[in-house]
């Protein structure tokens, strides 16, 4: 095909034009071999800009287009769509990135222009040898997997299920509900968390489209977008839930007490337990680690008292396999351990507690029935300090990021404390008050104006116990005075960290995690609920610290992404994938080892090993191509010959 390439250079307002001499780029490229047309325009991505490209394709009978503009991640799809509207194969259109790769990072106009010209020339060389490609079609299994049964997972599962598709919901704990189930009231409306959450939990439990695997974990994942196969480990609960009616006698009689995870260690549970009364499903499990029978071989009291014969000590972990087309990861968060904050006692003071513990003290269903009593002696604390940014915003020693919710929940805590203990004195220590959500600032103002909560700007340096009181070495940075504050109890707004299991899970799912262990989104602005692995989405605090409204919104967004997928007959996959020249392939298998997506495998053909590409799984990363020792792999539209020509164009 004789190349007839058109080059369209965008000013991007002044983003490009202020550093790159756009006119010079146009002039320089006009005589370049294969280029039959070149022109510039102020906003190529605008409607007139796109129209300009379309009309030039028709007028000049262009068979290739280079748009010199911003990064292809931004507008490659836009321009490919533009050219296809007038019958040009979209893969004959390429972007020359002269913004992020040129104008934004240089200051010398002359040199930047030279560089822009080279970038454009090299992309022209690429387009010359670009094949016309068609997207790859992949079938799609219209069932979703949601990992994590907190509010994010619950919301996502319900949205998908209500749209008419089946959902598999996997929760590692005996009950769904997550941390939200532990909260007493929620800011800024002071809605009772249980009242808004538990109906949703019940809905999940009863939904005909939701298959709930509680006390289960994702063991392994294979397959690819639209066609995942997930292996789920059903942890042995030692209770036959089909026989159990939830009468609770076993829990009553069990002799072993261990600190309750749900109550944040403020009270105990039994070794056979339901985490909390409103649990869904409301069926007990035996905690193997602590069960007397598993530890000593004696006891079996629960078995004796169960009139339904539901106790099964010989139960083993089981595995089930499910086929799903999309996955939402909603594994949530944990609080950063108090033990890491040595200057605040490192966990040795009973009355220095974290926010979730205080939620339990406030909760009507908590160990104190909602009366605020301090853990050490059950005394009602008359002065309580609330300390924010504990372990957060501390790149030197702990976590660099803001935990997003502490400002608000500590305000809520101070307010609720005041409601429960009207003569109590709450003191909030803060650095900045971040109250950016709807109704949040008003909420903080209410705490200050109406509830007279004392806010002291300054980070507490040390906490110690003296005479049954806690002493805080602090400072009021606004008055410039050092303070030594004595209180009865301290609530720490601990940093929020991702659920520890997410690291292993991310490896299994082949999705990325960031430096802080949170899941990485595909694009921080434009693709906030997608991972870089197609078909896997994220929601809630697994992604970053966030509050309930944001979590719910993100969960619904992830669900809608899944539903968008499910609304199509087939999935379209980018055709820029690896190819194998079977006449060259020796079947050495290096590509199989290299492929991060599991898209390469060895096939035996006529007794010989030959590598093949699963086009649906291939993401076109190029690892196998670089690694192929025999040069038998090529990538569509990034063939070696093209790359060599592109390099030559730059080095010319």
């Amino acid at each position: 095909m004789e190349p007839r390439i058109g080059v369209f250079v965008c000013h991007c307002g002044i983003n490009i034009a202020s550093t790159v001499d756009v006119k010079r780029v146009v002039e320089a490229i006009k005589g370049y071999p294969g280029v039959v047309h070149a022109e510039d325009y102020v906003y190529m991505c605008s409607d007139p800009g796109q129209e300009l490209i379309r009309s030039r394709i028709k007028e000049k009978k262009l068979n290739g287009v280079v748009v010199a503009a911003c990064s292809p991640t931004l507008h490659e799809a836009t321009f490919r769509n533009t050219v296809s509207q007038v019958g040009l194969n979209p893969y004959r259109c390429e972007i020359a990135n002269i913004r992020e790769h040129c104008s934004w990072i240089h200051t010398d106009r002359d040199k930047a222009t030279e560089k822009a010209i080279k970038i454009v020339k090299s992309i022209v060389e690429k387009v010359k040898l670009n094949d016309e490609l068609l997207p790859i079609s992949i079938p799609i299994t219209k069932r979703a997997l949601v990992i994590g049964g907190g509010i994010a997972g619950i919301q996502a599962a319900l949205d998908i299920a209500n749209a008419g598709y089946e959902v598999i919901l996997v929760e590692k704990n005996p009950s769904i509900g997550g941390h939200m189930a532990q909260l007493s009231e929620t800011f800024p409306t002071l809605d009772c968390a249980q009242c808004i959450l538990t109906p949703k939990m019940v809905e999940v439990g009863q939904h005909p489209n939701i298959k709930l695997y509680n006390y289960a974990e994702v063991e392994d994942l294979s397959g690819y977008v639209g066609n995942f196969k997930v292996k789920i480990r059903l942890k042995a609960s030692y209770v036959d839930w089909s026989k159990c009616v939830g009468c609770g006698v076993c829990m009553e009689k069990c002799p072993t007490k261990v600190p309750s995870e749900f109550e944040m260690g403020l009270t105990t549970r039994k070794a056979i337990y339901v985490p909390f009364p409103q649990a869904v499903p409301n069926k007990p499990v035996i905690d193997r680690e602590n069960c007397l029978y598993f530890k000593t071989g004696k006891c079996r009291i629960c078995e004796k008292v169960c009139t339904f014969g539901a106790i099964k000590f010989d139960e083993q972990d089981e595995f089930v396999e499910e086929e799903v087309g999309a996955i939402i990861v909603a594994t949530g968060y944990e609080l950063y351990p108090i033990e890491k904050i040595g200057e605040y006692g490192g966990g040795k003071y009973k009355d220095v507690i974290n926010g979730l513990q205080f939620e339990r003290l406030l909760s009507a269903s908590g160990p104190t029935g909602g009366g605020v009593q301090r853990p050490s002696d059950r005394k009602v604390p008359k002065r309580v300090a609330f300390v924010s940014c504990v372990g957060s915003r501390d790149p030197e020693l702990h976590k660099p990021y803001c935990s997003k919710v502490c400002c608000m929940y500590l305000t809520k805590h101070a307010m609720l404390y005041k409601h429960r203990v009207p003569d109590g004195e709450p003191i909030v220590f803060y650095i900045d008050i971040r109250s950016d959500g709807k109704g949040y600032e008003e909420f903080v103002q209410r705490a200050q104006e109406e509830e007279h909560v004392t806010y002291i700007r300054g980070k507490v340096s040390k906490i110690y116990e003296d005479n049954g009181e806690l002493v805080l070495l602090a400072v009021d940075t606004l008055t410039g005075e050092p303070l030594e504050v004595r209180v009865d109890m301290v609530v720490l707004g601990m940093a929020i960290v991702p659920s520890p299991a997410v690291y292993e899970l991310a490896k299994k799912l082949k999705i990325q995690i960031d430096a802080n262990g949170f899941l990485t989104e595909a694009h921080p602005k434009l693709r906030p609920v997608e991972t870089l692995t197609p078909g896997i989405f994220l929601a809630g605090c697994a992604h970053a610290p966030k509050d309930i409204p944001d979590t719910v919104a993100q969960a619904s967004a992830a669900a809608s992404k899944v539903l968008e997928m499910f609304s199509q007959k087939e999935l379209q996959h980018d055709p820029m994938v690896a190819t194998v020249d079977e006449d060259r392939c020796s079947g050495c298998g290096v590509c199989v080892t290299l492929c991060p997506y599991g898209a390469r495998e060895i096939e035996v053909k006529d007794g010989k090993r030959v590598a093949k590409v699963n086009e649906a799984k291939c993401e076109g990363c190029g690892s196998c191509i670089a690694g192929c020792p025999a040069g038998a792999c090529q990538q569509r539209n990034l063939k070696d010959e093209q790359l060599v020509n592109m390099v030559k164009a730059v080095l010319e």
Partner: protein
Amino acid sequence: MKIFYYPGCTLKTQARNFECSAMEVMKLLGYELVELNRWNCCGTVYSLASDDLIHKVAPIRNLVRVKEQGGDKVVTLCAMCYNTLKQANVFFNSDQEARDKINSFMDTEIDYEGDVEVLHLLTVLRDEVGFDNISKKVVRKLNHIKVAPYYGCLLLRPSTVAIDDAENPSIMEELLHALGVETIDFPYRNECCGTYNTVSAVDLVIDRTYRIVGLARNLGADVIVTSCPLCQFNLEVRQKDVKERFPEFEQLPVIYFTQLMGVALGVPTERLGFELNHIKPKVLMEL
């Protein structure tokens, strides 16, 4: 076993009780502290400015002496000496350019390669002698007294030279427990005593002493144990000034950990230098 020992100025004068008790205790444990020949003042405070190399010469020179005398480690008792020698050594190992400069400045000495280990006696007791072994040699029961361990600053900070966790250290408690002594959970054990401000801002030191000793007493301590001659001075001698200002204030003896060790291990109390202690730890001396 012999270990090179760097005394520093105060161990030879006001803190002779620290030195003599340490010598006695180590002898009993089968170690000999060999005083470094030709040691010089370490400078007492480590110089912190980026362009100030000259003040690092003094501590480094002492480490050169260790090398010259065939050693590869040196133990200190005084927390200030420990801190200064150790910080200088850490710096020496982190900055090649500075190392070359300092070496060429000390042109009569052998070149120092940064390879002398600077230790504090507490870590030697833990890592080489072993607290278990010390425990086996205890002959006097001291379970009737409660001790407030006091670390001060320079054993724990900055983190590059710390012998233990800066906020929740435990080495001294572990040693004291090995001696069969009960310790209090002492929140002020790593709080500063006011240090050299005792010369020109004595009010500050009086305030610190009032708080630190006061809290120790409140928490039921019979004696404070420390490892720094300046802490010992401030916390003990300044109690007189505290008492003048706060007549209700009750005094508390402040001794070196080696003195307490000596008592527990059966060293005759007259050899532990208690005569230099201004407030006599009667609970220990009358055993």
